[in-house]
């Protein structure tokens, strides 16, 4: 490790209603691989977006190569040598490798683009990085791993001095990861500073020199990787502060009947051989990191996506769920993590959204019985304590928590006994969160069975009667609430198979 190339000091950043970064520090040296760790929502991405000019900071200072800098857009950051290799690669799939690398700064031959020269330059870059890629190949034909290497080559071609890797191995195979690590070590030897964001504890130990941990938008601390254990890092990530009292013991009697049984469910790459049971009146937490395959499992179960294999039993009876219609008819309701895209029809009214899944029961012959529709909507507005002037208000005018209540009402009106809550409190403020929790507890007490997918460990521990942990498409753990803790869950969630 060499001299310090970058110091981010007391960085503060707020969005409307959310204090995303609170006095965060980060120091990066030349020729260092520096891990940035934290749970989902800890502020890692926000911090990197501030560094690379995507967001402007509210306060604090960024000192780069001895000078204080301030970027207003990503281009300025790139121009001085700070680049990011995104988790989601930004490629023009139909262009060639070389065209992608030199996009926006094409080599010209008079007024015409000189593809031959760009190919030659790209080939030189690859040679330097010891990568075997044909610059003239259409980039969409390459594997994700190779595409990522093109991104790295692009960064190098811009004389990058700092490269940020955002979960670079998430989509890579074992051998691709080895190759990537070789390149990263190479870059390190060349004196480039590398920020490495990953959830994979094993990788952190292998590839990084230091670790900075963040939690809830705050800087927790920096460790030297070889001097610390995995558990040290996990403890820093989850912290000792428990905001909510975790549930002490399960509310479900031992002999409660199993209402849903999923056996060997497979769907694409993200759901591999998942089996679990859900009991009547139970809240089954699904824990795991982002991309663990929990939403995919729920969607396959609900028939929203095609499943490849696996059996689903509801109340002991095998059901064939091919699409959401089948699922709804079997009494399963799904509350999406992305409420605005998949949960509600924003520009329609509360009444219309409430009866969306059960309109056939609110008909008077050929016509919609608007009086009954409003009555049932009002009934649920009162029951769920939805705050709205009238049921004729378009849901776009409601706050996140109240929108969520409208989605809940939709499934309750349909009389669904199994409810899948996917990130039920995402984008919902603290006060409303508690209300949603209370509602879920009430529903479970009334005998509804709930699957709750959540990336917030405190939420999982507070609500669940039992916990399924997933990692990379597989179920990697099942814990009773009595044996579950942030540490045990985290361990299962970072367990690579």
């Amino acid at each position, binding site marked *: 490790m060499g001299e310090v190339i970058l110091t981010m000091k007391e960085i503060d950043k707020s969005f409307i209603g959310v204090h995303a970064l609170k006095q965060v520090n980060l120091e990066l040296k030349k020729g260092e691989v520096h891990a940035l760790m934290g749970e989902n929502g800890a502020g890692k991405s926000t911090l990197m977006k501030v560094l690379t000019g995507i967001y402007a900071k509210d306060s604090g200072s960024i000192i780069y190569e001895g000078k204080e800098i301030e970027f207003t857009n990503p281009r300025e950051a790139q121009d001085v040598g700070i680049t990011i290799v995104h988790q989601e690669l930004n490629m023009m799939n139909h262009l060639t490798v070389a065209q992608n690398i030199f996009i926006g700064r094409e080599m010209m031959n008079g007024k015409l683009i000189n593809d031959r020269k760009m190919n030659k330059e790209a080939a030189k870059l690859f040679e330097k990085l010891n990568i075997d890629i044909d610059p003239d190949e259409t980039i969409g034909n390459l594997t994700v791993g190779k595409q990522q290497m093109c991104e790295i080559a692009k960064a190098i071609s811009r004389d990058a001095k700092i490269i940020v890797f955002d979960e670079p191995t998430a989509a890579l195979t074992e051998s691709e990861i080895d190759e990537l690590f070789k390149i990263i070590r190479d870059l390190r030897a060349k004196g480039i500073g590398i920020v490495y964001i990953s959830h994979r504890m094993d990788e952190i130990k292998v590839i990084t020199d230091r670790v900075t941990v963040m939690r809830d938008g705050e800087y927790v601390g920096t460790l030297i990787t070889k001097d610390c254990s995995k558990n040290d890092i996990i403890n820093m990530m989850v912290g000792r502060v428990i905001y909510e009292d975790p549930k002490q013991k399960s509310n479900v009697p031992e002999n409660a009947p199993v209402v849903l049984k999923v056996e060997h469910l497979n769907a694409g790459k993200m759901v591999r051989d998942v089996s679990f049971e859900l009991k009547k009146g139970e809240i089954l937490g699904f824990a795991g990191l982002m991309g663990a395959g929990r939403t995919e499992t729920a969607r396959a179960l*609900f028939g*929203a996506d095609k499943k490849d294999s696996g059996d689903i039993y509801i109340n002991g009876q095998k059901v064939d769920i091919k*699409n*959401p*219609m089948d*699922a*709804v*008819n079997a009494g399963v309701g*799904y509350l*999406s993590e992305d409420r605005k*895209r*998949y*949960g*509600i*029809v*924003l*520009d*329609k009214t509360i009444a*219309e959204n409430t009866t*969306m*899944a059960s*309109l*056939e029961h609110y*008909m008077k012959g*050929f*016509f*919609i019985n*608007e009086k009954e529709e409003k009555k049932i909507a009002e009934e649920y507005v009162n029951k769920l304590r939805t*705050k*709205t*002037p009238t049921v004729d*208000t378009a849901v776009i*005018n*409601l*706050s996140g*928590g*109240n929108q969520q209540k409208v989605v809940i009402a*939709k499934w309750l009106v*349909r009389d669904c006994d199994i409810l899948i809550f996917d990130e039920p409190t995402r984008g919902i*403020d603290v*006060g*409303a969160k508690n209300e949603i929790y209370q509602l879920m507890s009430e529903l479970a007490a009334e005998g509804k069975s709930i699957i709750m997918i959540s990336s917030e460990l405190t939420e999982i521990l507070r609500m669940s009667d039992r916990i399924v942990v997933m990692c990379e498409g597989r179920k990697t753990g099942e814990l009773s609430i009595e044996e579950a803790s942030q540490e045990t869950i985290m361990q299962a969630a970072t367990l690579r198979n």
Partner: protein
Amino acid sequence: MENIQKKVSTKTNPFIDNPVVKAIGTQRLIAVLALLALTGFFSIASPAFRQWTTVVSIFDASYYIGFMAIGITFVIITGGIDLSIGTVLVCSSLIAGSLAVKNGVPVAACLAVGILIGALFGLCNGLMVSIMGLPPFIATLGTMMVSKGFGSIYSKAQSVTWPQAAGDGGWFRSIFKVTIGSGAGAKIIPTGFLLLIILAVIMSVILNKTRPGRYILALGSNKEATRLSGVNIVKWETLAYIFSGSFAGLAGIAYAASYSTMLPGGGAGFELDAIAGVVIGGTSMSGGYGSIAGTLIGVFIMSVLKTGLPFIGLQPHYQQFITGFVLIAAVFADVVNRRKKN
């Protein structure tokens, strides 16, 4: 505490926040005002315009575009488009007409066949879009060509003339126009206008008060959320195209009643007039919102222009020229309005 009603902006706009404007919708209000202004303008500029015959001409010019526009409003509300209705109009009218004239099939049955053929094309469009997953533009572009070709093949590239008013089976014309008396004192009653209004009311009720309408609006607004609510979106999306095709078939009959002779290979371009009417009337091209009343107003703006312009010494083809500006102005006003809201 939570905000019960998020205030979109702290400043209020007296025009947008006016309850009347809110109820009608900015764009539709502009369309109504444009229609009134145009009618007023022609009435003042030309005394000859202020006659019953002019009114009849305006109505006459609006039937077939009006029928097409009502049908395609449903497709546009789903967020789709139907480019085939113009050629489906001609194709169904060619087949139905030649059944009547050449095969001696009773005219009443032919009318039903005409509408049915339109519905079948609509069904094909609907299935291609909802089940096969083709983009509506491409699917209906294909149907446009197929129906154009099929009409010509069936009629052996010969024109078909529907029965004349006085002739056998010519009664169907009185669905759209009844003439009482003869000579200079003849009174024309535009019954087609009545039919247009009746169907508009029925379709408006279907759109706003029934399950098909509710689901079509919902899936146009957010298809995925509607699907995940367990709604059979394949069925309802297809139905929108069936409406569109059936109304094109009906428009074919209305067209035959006005112009008698159907020419194979024609009809391309009619759909654009219908789409223009729908859009001027305030239906959103991105789906999820629309109204039949607005569509009718849009159609009437075009026929008032078409009929009125000759009165002030401009040829009817100025209609296209001016309608273009009206279309752009109406949609732009809506875009500006929406931008302000955001």
